[in-house]
């Protein structure tokens, strides 16, 4: 199997911050809004370099979404920044009416997504945001896996006209994609070709999928790994081509299995290629306080859970 090298642990949110700084320097239409989390979102450099184009809105996310819709109406390209929970559930109706239904070119950038936010606990760990956002007509939903991918996604969504939800995280994680990779919205990445099983992973679970595949390979199981960064629109062709070859699939995400990437894949499989699927994700539960690694282990969001799911799904293949 292909070798994947961690170039050094880095947080995905810093990828967002670096890209936003670049956008600030290169595109005068880009504006940024933040709800009292500038440091957490790594938006400081943009704010310092572009005081006229940075709006500190205070702890008032509903207003932030409305302001962003208005700025987009006036031709700007607004990037909003706050935690994933406050970027989605807290302001769902504002996004629905003023941004999605109104088709505004707003980039909703959400850090601290999922359980790996860690010690702050369930109030801040949203595991439902992908579901919320993918259900909005016209909304593009992206969940990036490492620093490099977050940076290139942040840059690329600027070139796309329409509302986007960009989801990334808090902890430092393996940075293994190439910084030169072109980010294409809606195009999954074939990380490794294999014949026995397809693992489709998004976000922090992609690295876990790679580690699981390495172990499976040693035990004679040949794994195809797909990195889906764009959950909507889903790269259906890539997934279908793969599963038609391997005959089974494991989806992996740091999100509730109700409403996440796995469900989107299940819908695709049931209508076009009914092969067995196993789901890695949280199972209809809130999170809790703990370190990111402790939480990933407790809630089954790690390489060993993926390993077990692969064994299980292979056994379910129609003989």
């Amino acid at each position, binding site marked *: 199997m292909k070798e994947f090298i961690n170039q050094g642990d880095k947080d995905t949110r810093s990828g967002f911050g670096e890209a936003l700084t670049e956008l600030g320097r290169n595109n005068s239409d880009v*504006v940024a809004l933040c709800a009292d989390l500038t440091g957490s979102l790594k938006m400081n450099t943009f704010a310092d370099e572009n005081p*006229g*184009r940075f*709006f500190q*809105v*205070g702890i*008032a996310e*509903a*207003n932030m*979404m*409305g*302001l*962003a*819709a*208005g*700025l*987009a*109406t*006036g*031709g*700007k390209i*607004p990037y909003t920044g706050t935690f994933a929970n406050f970027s989605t559930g807290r302001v769902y*109706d*504002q996004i*629905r*009416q*003023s941004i999605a*239904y*109104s*088709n*505004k070119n707003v980039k909703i950038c959400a850090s601290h997504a999922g359980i790996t936010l860690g010690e702050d606990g369930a109030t801040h760990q949203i595991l439902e945001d992908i579901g919320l956002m993918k259900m909005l007509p016209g909304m593009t939903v992206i969940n990036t896996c490492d620093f490099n991918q977050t940076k290139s996604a942040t840059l690329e969504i600027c070139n796309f006209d329409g509302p986007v939800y960009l989801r990334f995280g808090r902890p430092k994680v393996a940075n293994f994609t190439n910084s030169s990779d072109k980010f294409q919205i809606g195009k999954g990445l074939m990380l490794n070709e294999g014949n026995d099983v397809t693992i489709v992973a998004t976000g922090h679970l992609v690295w876990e999928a790679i580690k699981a595949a390495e172990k499976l390979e040693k035990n004679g199981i040949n794994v195809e790994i797909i990195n889906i960064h764009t959950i909507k629109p889903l790269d259906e062709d890539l997934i279908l081509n793969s599963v038609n070859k391997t005959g089974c699939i494991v989806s992996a995400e740091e999100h509730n299995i109700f409403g996440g990437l796995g469900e989107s894949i299940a819908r695709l499989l049931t209508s076009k290629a009914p092969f067995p699927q196993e789901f890695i994700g949280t199972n209809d539960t809130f999170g809790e306080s703990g370190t990111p690694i402790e939480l990933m282990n407790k809630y089954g969001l790690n390489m060993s859970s993926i390993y077990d799911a692969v064994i299980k799904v292979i056994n379910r293949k129609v003989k």
Partner: protein
Amino acid sequence: MSKDLDKLVIQTRRDILRMVHGVNSGHPGGSLGCVEFFVTLYNQIMEHGPNEDSKDMFILSNGHISPVYYSTLARAGYFETKELNTFRKINSRLQGHPTNHDNLPGVNISSGSLGQGLSVGIGVALSKKLNNDSSLVYVLTGDGELQEGQNWEAFMFASANKVDNIIVTIDLNGQQIDGSTEDVLDIGNLKLKLESFNWEVLEIENGNSLKDVHKTLSKAKTNSMRGRPIAILMKTIMGNGVDFMMYTHKWHGVAPNDEQLKEALNQNPETLGDY
């Protein structure tokens, strides 16, 4: 001019009544209460037009009064008046609550779920400042909808950031679905509240007088760009112009029947031609 605007007021009322009657749904009360405001804003105050680039922008926050908005836009040339006949019908651009989703000219944002238009208007105002565009943003909100907390986030933001290119009119008709605003959830002394939020507050005692509305909107325009956002408290009568619809919240979201329509239209004889 004034005589023509009087005629336009009457014709707009007829449009509203015929639209809601045509589909036996919609919100005539608040629409009738704001006719003079819309006629003044679109004919005497705003610089606007379907084909102008740099222009003032209007954001309607209380989207349920879409009938008066649609009639105003049609009679200002944004689309043909005959399209008013599609209001609330299947495959129409004239949705129950206004939206830009179907590319209806003159509508820049969706509204209906209340309390969102003020934030949007402030966002547009910020973009105008960034573009060195000296045109203004006008927002209309209801009074009941000020019970939504997002408005107060927005009021706080606008004054703190000296957004002075926005004029927000609040339709003080004192009514909402469940009764008077005082009974449902008292908004209290709005003037003092907004002044304490560091807004400049102007008042229109009779929001159903073209002259009064024009006077105060003109003053607001003059006072804009001076470091503070401007709010206008405009007292109106819900259902204005149709005697049996006035002074009650009963007609907030109820359409007249055939007989009531006939009576209401008799009180407002055709002036500029029905759609």
